């Protein structure tokens, strides 16, 4: 009996031993909750790759520091009172400088390569799994889109990520060689965009996906930019050094002509796209994702998961759409009878104030000199701040405001005047009763500041990029969330500018599509009003004729640039426009603005030092550090003068 027991036990023990011993499969791995790169070779993986390309736009468009790098330091804006070094550096006005460790100029570099690689992966794998070329062309579009951004920003960039030119990289190589600018255009940008133009659908696959028209705009812009580069009128250096000779044997004129042709094709065959009726309707939140919007980084207020960022409190980092906070001054400081009469609200005129960037006085006096006929000033800025204390639970029917006069909710608390008034404004010393240093004019119940009275701390807000929510009810909503609106990347209207610019640069034009005629399409539209945004009243007016009449007989590059700024002010086009046309130094070398304290209304002229080497940005130090190369190779990798 006892023996049997022992036998049983020993047998059990041995069995356990043997089972344990043979059970070698505990060393095998089977992931069940993560995707490994193999997934990328399936049809769903390819589709996931495409979605991630649209997602990558959020890391650039709406990302305020990237946004800053394209606007601060141009003739559109300078740094604001609460600016940190990221903004002061970009201003090039002595408060900082752009070096290889500057964050804003590194964002593009660190964002797009993974996307380029994903695009290459999709392009390589999609054919194998039977995906249609119309879909693959979306990947081609994004690969070209990213390379186009890179080449404009940094000069030549690598086409080989480690597995060969334009190949999907899965190697761990830490070596990199930069191609030249012509190589990037002729190998990396044009072929992809041409295929995309040929294969993308006329109508988007899903809301906001790229179309033939989108591809045409970027192909036209790429031709235009490359043509300027070949021409190089102001002798701006390029890097890696190369002769300005097109490997495909064309000259600048040929590319200007291509730019014109492709852009006009886009205008003539708009597909599902086109201009909307008024400029106000291009930018008003209720009309987001309109047909003029060719490309945007989308967001939604309906799902935090798919919005990618908080719907209640934005973190101030990608993928938040928080660019709009930068040029929003701290309007909640405003007081009427000691009460904060304009509170933070999730409303397009208001939003979250970060005071990091400020428009210059020149913007109001020069760019937007016409504030009456041209609806674009009213459709760009918040110039009237209206009382909303009732939404915060304060039931006061009126508050006494300027000159002791009562203002009801919805009434103007502060107005940025269109021009200098004939009666001088009485400004308080310091911040005054209104707490922002705004002045009074006799008989007016609103406080006022004139264009020459704006400062780095108090200035009109950027209405265009303000938040728009439908879930605020009767309250203030969620002003601290990132904007849930799509951030515009490209608009149909730009086709007119591209074609016009190419025409100015000598492209043969089609009938009815001369530079002036093209620009006038945009200007005529700008003359159409259906709503007085800052007056907050319906206003139906058609000033198209006056607008056209004011167009100079001969359009030059400077005029196109001015007009571009009126159309696209504060959206992130400016630095590229000034660099492409090599006009940065000419147009942005000085500006005027008041100081950083409330009550300061004395414009100060500030000079910028913009040097030729700065027309391309430094290669980010993170790239240099992460490569395994000799110090000499690393030095050669960096753009000149940034070492």
């Amino acid at each position, binding site marked *: 009996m006892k023996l049997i027991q022992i036998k049983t036990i020993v047998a059990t023990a041995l069995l356990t031993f043997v089972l344990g011993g043979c059970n070698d499969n505990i060393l095998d791995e089977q992931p069940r909750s993560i995707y490994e790169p193999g997934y990328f070779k399936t049809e769903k993986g390819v589709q996931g790759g495409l979605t991630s390309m649209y997602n990558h736009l959020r890391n650039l468009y709406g990302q305020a520091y990237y946004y800053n790098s394209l606007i601060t330091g141009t003739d559109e804006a300078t740094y604001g009172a*609460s600016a940190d070094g990221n903004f002061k550096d970009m201003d090039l006005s002595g408060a900082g400088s752009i070096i290889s460790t500057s964050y804003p100029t590194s964002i593009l570099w660190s964002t797009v390569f993974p996307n380029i690689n994903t695009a290459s992966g999709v392009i390589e794998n999609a054919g194998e799994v039977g995906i249609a070329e119309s879909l693959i062309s979306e990947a081609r579009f994004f690969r070209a889109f990213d390379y186009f951004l890179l080449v404009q920003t940094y000069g030549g960039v690598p086409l080989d*990520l480690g597995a060969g030119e334009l190949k999907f990289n899965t190697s761990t190589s830490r070596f990199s060689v930069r191609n030249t600018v012509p190589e990037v255009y002729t190998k990396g940008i044009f072929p992809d965009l041409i295929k995309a133009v040929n294969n993308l659908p006329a109508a988007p696959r899903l809301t906001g996906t790229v179309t033939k028209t989108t591809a045409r705009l970027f192909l036209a812009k790429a031709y235009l930019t490359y043509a300027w580069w070949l021409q190089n009128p102001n002798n701006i250096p390029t890097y890696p050094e190369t002769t300005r000779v097109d490997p495909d044997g064309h000259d600048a004129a040929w590319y200007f002509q291509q730019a014109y042709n492709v852009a006009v094709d886009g205008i003539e065959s708009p597909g599902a796209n086109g201009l909307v009726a008024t400029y106000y309707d291009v930018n008003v939140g209720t009309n987001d994702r309109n047909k003029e919007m060719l490309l945007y980084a989308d967001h939604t207020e309906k799902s935090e998961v798919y919005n990618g960022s908080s719907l209640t409190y934005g973190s101030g980092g990608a993928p938040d759409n928080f660019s709009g906070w930068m040029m929003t001054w701290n309007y909640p400081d405003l007081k009427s009878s000691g009460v904060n009469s304009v509170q933070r609200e999730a409303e397009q005129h208001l939003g979250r104030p970060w005071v990091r960037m400020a428009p210059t006085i020149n913007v109001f006096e020069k760019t937007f000199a016409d504030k009456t006929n041209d609806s674009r000033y009213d459709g760009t800025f918040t110039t009237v701040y209206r009382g909303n204390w009732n939404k915060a639970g304060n039931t006061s029917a009126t508050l006494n405001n300027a000159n002791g006069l009562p203002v009801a909710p919805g009434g103007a608390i502060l107005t940025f005047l269109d021009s200098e008034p004939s009666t001088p404004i009485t400004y308080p010393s310091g911040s005054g009763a209104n707490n922002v240093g705004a002045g009074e004019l006799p008989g007016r119940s609103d406080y006022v500041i004139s264009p020459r009275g704006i400062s780095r701390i108090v200035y009109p807000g950027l209405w265009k990029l303000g938040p728009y929510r439908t879930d605020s009810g009767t309250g203030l909503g969620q002003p601290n969330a990132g904007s849930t609106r799509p951030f515009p990347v490209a608009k149909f209207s730009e086709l007119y500018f591209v074609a016009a610019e190419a025409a100015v640069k000598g492209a043969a034009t089609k009938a009815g599509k001369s530079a002036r005629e093209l620009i006038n399409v945009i200007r005529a539209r700008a003359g159409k009003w259906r709503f007085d945004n800052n007056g907050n009243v319906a206003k139906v007016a058609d000033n198209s004729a006056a607008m056209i009449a004011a167009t100079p007989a001969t359009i030059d590059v400077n005029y196109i640039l001015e007009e571009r700024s009126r159309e696209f002010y504060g959206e992130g086009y400016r630095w590229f426009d000034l660099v492409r046309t090599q006009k940065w130094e000419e147009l942005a070398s000085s500006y005027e603005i008041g100081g950083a304290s409330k009550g300061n209304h004395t414009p100060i002229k500030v000079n910028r030092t913009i040097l030729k080497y700065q027309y391309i940005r430094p290669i980010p130090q993170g790239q240099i550090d992460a490569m395994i190369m000799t110090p000499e190779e690393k030095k050669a990798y960096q753009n000149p003068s940034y070492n």
Partner: protein
Amino acid sequence: MTNFLFIKSKSKHFKHLGFLLLLFMFSVGAHAQTTVSGIVSDSFGPIPGVNVSLKGGKNGVSTNIDGKYSINNVPANAVLVYSFVGFVTQEIAVKGQSQINVTLSEESSTLKEVVVIGYGTQRKEAVTGSVASISGTTLRDVPSSNITQALQGRLAGVEIAQTSTKPGTSMQIRIRGARSLSASNDPLVVLDGIPFSGTFSDINPGDVKSVDILKDASATAIYGSRGANGVILVTTNKGQKGQAARFSYDHFYAVKSAFAQYDMMNGPEFVALRKAATAPGASAPLFSNGPDESNDVNINWQDEFYRTGIEASHNMSVLGGTEKGTYKFNLGYLKDEAIVPQQDFERISLNASIDQEIGAFRFGLTTNNNFSINNGASMGVGTVLSTTPIANPYNLDGTLKRTVKMAQDEAWVTTRETINNLGDKWKDQSQTMASYNNIFMEVKIPGIEGLKYRLNGGLNIRMSNSGNYTGEGVFNINPTTVSTASISNSISKNWTAENILTYDRTFAQKHKINVVGMFSSEQGTSNNSNIGAKNIPSDDFQYYNLGYALGEITINPDWQGYSQSGLMSYMARAMYSYDDRYMLTATVRSDGSSRLADGYEWHTYPAISAGWNIGKESFLRDNKYINLLKLRVGYGQTSNQAVNPYSTLGRLTTRNYNFGDTYAVGSYVSTLPNPELGWEFSTTMNYGIDFGLFNNRLSGTVEYYVTDTEDILLGVGLPPTSGVGSYTANIGQTQNKGYEISLSGTIIDNLNGWTWDAGVNFYSNENKLVALATGQTRDEGNGWFVGSPINVIYDYEKIGLWQQGDANLTKYEPGGNVGMIKVKYTGDFNPDGTPTRQIGAADRQIIKLDPDFQGGFNTRVAYKGFDLSAVAAFQSGGTLISTLYGSAGYLNMLTGRRNNIRVDYWTPENTDAKYPRPGGIQSGDNPKYGSTLGYFDATYLKIRTITFGYNFDQKLLKTTGIDKLRLYCTAQNPFVFFSDYHKESGMDPETNSYGDENQAVASYNRRILTLSANTPSTRNFLIGLNLTF
């Protein structure tokens, strides 16, 4: 070693135990021949409870209170065995005598000390590796809810750092420093012989018998890859064979209050700051009072928030043994309340062990189970600290406001009252149930003396379930912010099977051989899930039915997970000692891990160590002064597989997008596969001397070691142009070298009833990164610099403030101002003395964090039943990062925007201040170089506990049936000395957060511990009682 001190007292109370044993024991009847009786005594007199038995027989009796025994049925040729814990067992041949009086001699402290070494125990004198031990009793000198707290400062080379001050959190343990850059540096914990997968908060300190820490490779080799960061062997109490049942009850009750409040400004101080904070050149302050602020208000928000916390612990156990078996039951209960309202930790633990011999077999089971509830862990102090003291939380009618509007910020009014009033509107709870079980079967292989086979099976399971509900508008400035709720669940399972053959024999009395061979496999599987929901229609639901949510229900893929990993090992160890003079231990182990790449899964490595007990050599044997002198030297390799499962496979990261109202999930390659990922190795040389002098009144250990770690497993950041963020590879080398000194002594040895013992330990570990990825000497992004320790910060070095008249201020600092922080410039100079460039990234310095040395000491004075003891910990040098003072916490913005930590700031009238001019040049929202304000000398000496206790007189207790009764009171965290940080702020200088926690902006690498805005550390007063009968 510190626990030498306690063995003595232990032996005394074992005597009393013996008395009880006697009371409870029944005589065992047997067939008689003669009866032998007598008295057993030691040098002080009769000893009760001594076991007297026939050699090879079953009979056994115990001596009574007078040390007398009487044993029946003793054959005339029998041999009697007299044994008692703490004494040398004696065997006496009866030879027909009927009266045998015996005097037992005490075992010397080194002889009787047994050390758990992994797959066995060893007498301390025979140990050749580096092992530090502490008994449960000594551990409990620092009453605590968690053994990591009690271990702090107690053992040389074992650095224990606080990672959180919340109840129920464990401390971080580093044995001889950190080795690895990205892999885990946590030591392996073995609970009752089986690798432990839980956290220290799952272990009831009341049930711990001993903690043994294996430090060098020759000691840890037996645990192979799991042991690279050291091994902590936790052994729980067990019954002893033949021991009468014993019941113990231990209890303590503590009252907790803040050690010090965070040193924020009060109303008038804040008003002065806001006034002083003007932009350079401007006269108006940056911020003016908000709607709810008024200069005549002076609210201490911390007073409004904190409560008095209570901590209570109960522990009951029954231990006993029969002739062939032992058993133990233990029930523990702990409740620990933070001083932050609604934050507490509760734990019930139930442990049992049973061990039974049946013939040649032995079976046993140890089970450690616990259930814990953690409430309110998410309740932070950030809002309380940042709300200005001039913001009035009360309406005119005395009711509390919902929010207070300050200059630029609005804050939800966070006070005890508002938190307590939330009721169903807020709940944050996590519950954990864990069960750690070890079963074994052992059999003596017939025919070969000393050969045993043992099968160990470990089965662990840990489940946790947590939920979080925040009602509409709760904590939010917007009263209509929708409610949110989330639930998460995780379960981790782990099994271990070990087949062990042990051969243990002594030949010719002098040759001791112990050989262990083992084959083991283990596998761990874990799975976790999380669901979030918005807009719960009623507060009643809280998080209990997310299905009712009206808003979005989210299952974030990043918060779901599954992982499984396995490890297989073969191990052999041989220990040989000759005449207790020469000892040799050799180990070889081979490990295979599923986490590593195909073809790189297996690795085999050796360890060897030797010891020479010089004290036993003839020339020293009779030396009066030297009782013990042992030299040890060890060499060994261990390896580390501590990468996450699936690290070799690469990974796609998903990101969501909306196409208008159409939702989609995107994916891209974020991590590349590495088909060559292999083991990380550490090689250690260890040298040690153990000594006991002056009749063992002074004993100690000195050790020196060098550990080189190679093929460090590291997440390698690729350059952006590779298109992929990173991959995991074997790259880099580190070195740790250091020394450890432990001394303990009996200063007064029973002089007129007085006894005074003291122990001290010092240790120093120098950590150095030897090499990084090919060609790189620095990785600024990760903060890794070859030649520097792993833990450094890379930042500017503050050398003062810029003063009026300082030359070239604007050249060094374009846009700068007088009174701003002055940092070190490392660039060149022009002939005219001006700098060639402005201060920039190139001027950042590597700032060392690790202390020069650290350690602890303990002392105990006893007189009759009274004793007074103290335990202290100290460290010297290194850098303490306080994010309260630096820029990460947003509490030292010096702009007057929010409340500010109380600092002496620069004004034109106060130019020799430490802190910069308020409102001066900023970087983001903080003063430029504001992070440099957060660095302090980390030196401190902290008295961790002072205990005054009384042991009731045994004779008095005798009548009550109680064997032992002790009452004590303890002050925890009473004093801090030598700390600059404490001097400046009055606060506790110990870290309380990981580097990315409890800050406004996560600013440091997680592994760098910081002092941040966590639940404040407390000073506790507790009373306790220990009762045994």
